[in-house]
């Protein structure tokens, strides 16, 4: 296919990616470009929260209850000090959103990393080994999937909250959230990975590796896994969006991040009580951020699915 006679220098990884089909379709797709741009802005801004935020919402010394419920800049009665206004406790909403988004993203990514680790390992083993182990693991996945994520999470978090008491729970809330969202959704990965493994396992390069005497772990990790990455990428974007939503829902229900360390969900929740007293911004602005964040991730996922076209990815 290629002109091998000419000895071109090996292109760098980036230019290879840029000139690949994926890079080409990205350049041609304005939705993908805008989505990625917005996602990067949100991600970078929230990562740099300690630098960008004028206040530290975690520091009680910087919070003055007298400052509570200032509206955003463009509304009458705003305090120019607080760009997006303040919440019910007098925290600067802009700073709180930056920190909250950081928390939401962190929980989302870590939870997905945990899901991916569990799901990919289980999916690889189930698909490659097959037989009884496959049946056992997939029935486990079915059972896990037959409970909704939120239900499992609510029960688990409510029980832990009752067991450890509110204070301890709040201290370790972030780990509990990651664990519960991570564990609840692994079957998504496991099923997708298993399906790809079954397809890849039939190809001759796997037979070739077996004839060369490579062990099952080497074949799974070095040969099958790299060829199963496309569906894993696609499912990961969707799962990050889902995990952020789950976290927000749990926090909204009071089972997630405590009000002293608000994520986007707990911020929305805390503002909810004031929505009828006219302080709509405490709920609305973090809500918009959450919706935009989840939307761009999903749009990126859609685009990626079209490009990588993993026919196997269908739940």
């Amino acid at each position, binding site marked *: *296919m*290629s002109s*091998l006679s000419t*000895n071109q220098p*090996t292109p760098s990884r980036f230019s290879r990616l840029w000139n690949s089909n994926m890079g080409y379709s990205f350049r041609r797709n304005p939705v993908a470009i805008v989505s990625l741009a917005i996602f990067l802005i949100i991600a970078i801004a929230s990562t740099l929260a300690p630098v960008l935020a004028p206040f530290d919402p975690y520091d009680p010394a910087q919070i003055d209850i007298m400052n509570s419920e200032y509206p955003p800049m463009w509304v009458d009665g705003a305090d120019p000090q607080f760009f997006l206004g303040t919440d019910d406790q007098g925290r600067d909403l802009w700073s709180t959103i930056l920190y909250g988004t950081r928390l939401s993203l962190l929980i989302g990514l870590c939870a997905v990393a945990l899901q991916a680790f569990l799901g990919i390992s289980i999916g690889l083993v189930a698909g490659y080994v097959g037989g009884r182990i496959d049946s056992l693991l997939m029935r486990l996945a079915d059972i896990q999937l037959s409970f909704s994520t939120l239900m499992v999470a609510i029960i688990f978090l409510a029980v832990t909250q009752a067991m450890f008491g509110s204070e301890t729970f709040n201290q370790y809330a972030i780990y509990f959230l990651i664990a519960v969202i991570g564990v609840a959704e692994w079957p998504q990965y496991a099923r997708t990975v298993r399906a790809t493994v079954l397809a890849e396992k039939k*190809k*001759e*390069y796997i*037979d*070739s*590796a*077996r*004839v*060369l*005497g*490579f*062990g099952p772990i*080497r074949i799974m990790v*070095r*040969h099958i896994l*790299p*060829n199963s990455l496309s569906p894993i990428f696609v499912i990961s974007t969707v799962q990050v969006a889902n995990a952020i939503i789950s976290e927000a829902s749990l926090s909204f229900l009071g089972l997630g991040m405590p009000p002293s360390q608000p994520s986007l969900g707990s911020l929305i929740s805390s503002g909810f009580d004031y929505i009828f007293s006219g302080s709509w911004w405490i709920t609305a602005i973090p809500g918009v951020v959450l919706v935009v964040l989840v939307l761009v991730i999903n749009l990126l996922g859609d685009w990626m699915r079209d490009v990588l076209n993993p026919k196997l990815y269908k739940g």
Partner: protein
Amino acid sequence: MSTASQQTKPLLELKGLEKRFDLDKGFLETVKLRGGRLTRERRSVHAVNNVSLNVDRGEALCIVGESGCGKSTVARLVAGLLSPTGGEIHYDGDRIDDRSRAAMMPLRKKMQMIFQNPYASLNPRMTIQQALEEPVRHHNPQMNRGEVRDKVAEVMRSVGVDPSWSSRYPHEFSGGQRQRIAIARALTVDPEFIIADEPISALDVSIQAQVLNLMLEAKDERGLTYFFITHDLSVVEHFGTRVAVLYLGTLCELADTRTLFENPKHPYTKALLSAVPKLKDEGPSHIRLQGEIPTPINLPQGCPFQTRCAFANARCRESRPRPLLQTDGSTVACHAVEEGRLDG
């Protein structure tokens, strides 16, 4: 050939090899409603039935047959990718079909396989260098980086792959080049025995010649023994020293290449040979077979070829012919040949 095989042990020996694939796997699948009653029955594909043959050192044994005759299954059984349902496989005097993966390891250096589809037999996410280095490292952990690189470069040169291509990925190569790389990969461990499963049937005519030449060269230079699976009889005539004809997983005829092409005995072999389109004679003149290959599920009693054979009689429908040695050294499994019915 026969004198040579008396002096030395055969390199590969298949003894009554059998392979069945169960179609109904779980318990529930075996339960069927027949005539208003629930019965348990298990259907299975009889892919290989009682195949016995030897491969001597230095020869190129070709297995020919049409699709579904079990030739690829035989290759996979020998390579240890499948385990036989019955029978034994001996390599260099030792039984190998019941060995664990670890016990097979020393054999993996001696026995390699080349696959049909060069588009699928290389890992698409590995560069050529990685693909070739991996087996060398795995089988020679004592080698240092430099030695591994030298070994890979040497093999690449010997198969006509430019070592400067090594940082490229398989999709950047054409089918013929990929097949060369696949052959190089098999040769990196210095094997003595190569199982080739239709290695050229996915390639273009002009490229087929290149790859066949490469395999012949490797045979001369490295003293390789080939177990060559193909459906292309002109390749067999050119490449093979002996030929085994399979039909529905059963051995029909086994003979030296020249004997088989000059004097085919089994009615199926005759039909097969006559069906090859010849370049320079006028019009088709092949032996027309009735019907088509039946499915290998629950094979009929008697000779597997009876449904299409013009010479089949009551005996052929009842008992399965056994492979018998003929005067010219070939082995034929056919009642009609045994009784001399075909000569009349």
